[in-house]
């Protein structure tokens, strides 16, 4: 038996898995919405709102947004970690990204809340 000594911050596997799970949820949402909407011609306000206000769509859209925010966090943080080496600037970018994403999550939730 090999005892591997794992070093590092230990979030690699969790993030790798999260990126894939959130991707699968978003892909499923995309395909379902595309199939439901592409058949409709000339979607007006009433039918568009009724479509989004359905219980299933509200649930699935919220799930999509949560997955999107999580997915973006992992992806954008990786970009900063790859290209921005000064610690202070990297920290600032991480914090700004995180704050923006939390704001977007609240924004999206408020849109769905009003349906």
């Amino acid at each position, binding site marked *: 038996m090999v005892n591997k000594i794992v070093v590092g911050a230990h979030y690699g596997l969790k993030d790798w898995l999260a990126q*894939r799970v959130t*991707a699968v949820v978003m892909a499923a949402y995309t395909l379902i919405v595309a199939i439901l909407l592409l058949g409709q011609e000339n979607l007006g306000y009433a039918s*568009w709102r009724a479509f*989004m206000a359905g219980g299933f769509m509200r649930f699935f859209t919220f799930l999509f947004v949560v997955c999107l925010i999580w997915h973006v966090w992992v992806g*954008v943080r990786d970009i900063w970690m790859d290209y921005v080496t000064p610690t202070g600037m990297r920290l600032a970018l991480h914090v700004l990204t995180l704050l923006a994403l939390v704001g*977007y999550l609240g924004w999206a939730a408020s*849109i769905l809340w009003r*349906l």
Partner: protein
Amino acid sequence: MKKERPKHLDLRVIKLPLPGFASILHRISGAGLFLMLPFLLYLFELSLDSELGFAMFKAVVAHPLAKLVLLGLLWAFLHHFCMGIRILLLDLNMGTELLAARTSAKAVMAVSLALTVILGVKLW
């Protein structure tokens, strides 16, 4: 004889193979989608707000500049989507041989561009 290896990773000098090119586009498309999230959320909110908001939404997306941005985002989304499926398949050990990986990278580029044209024409 000593092998001449590229001792640099200067992006202006090295030539990326197609899977590498598709991969960096995955990152660029993701970054673009992230940067445009506020715009997309704004459009989503507008479209669901009221009859008036919906009319404003239609007016905004009819603007040539907005159309151009949205067409770019449509490609970014489709490329990111197709490339994501390719990555999931690679994770399942499917298509990891050199030829298969090159073919799938080519397919991702072709399918995402073709879908952008088809959906772009259909939506506008």
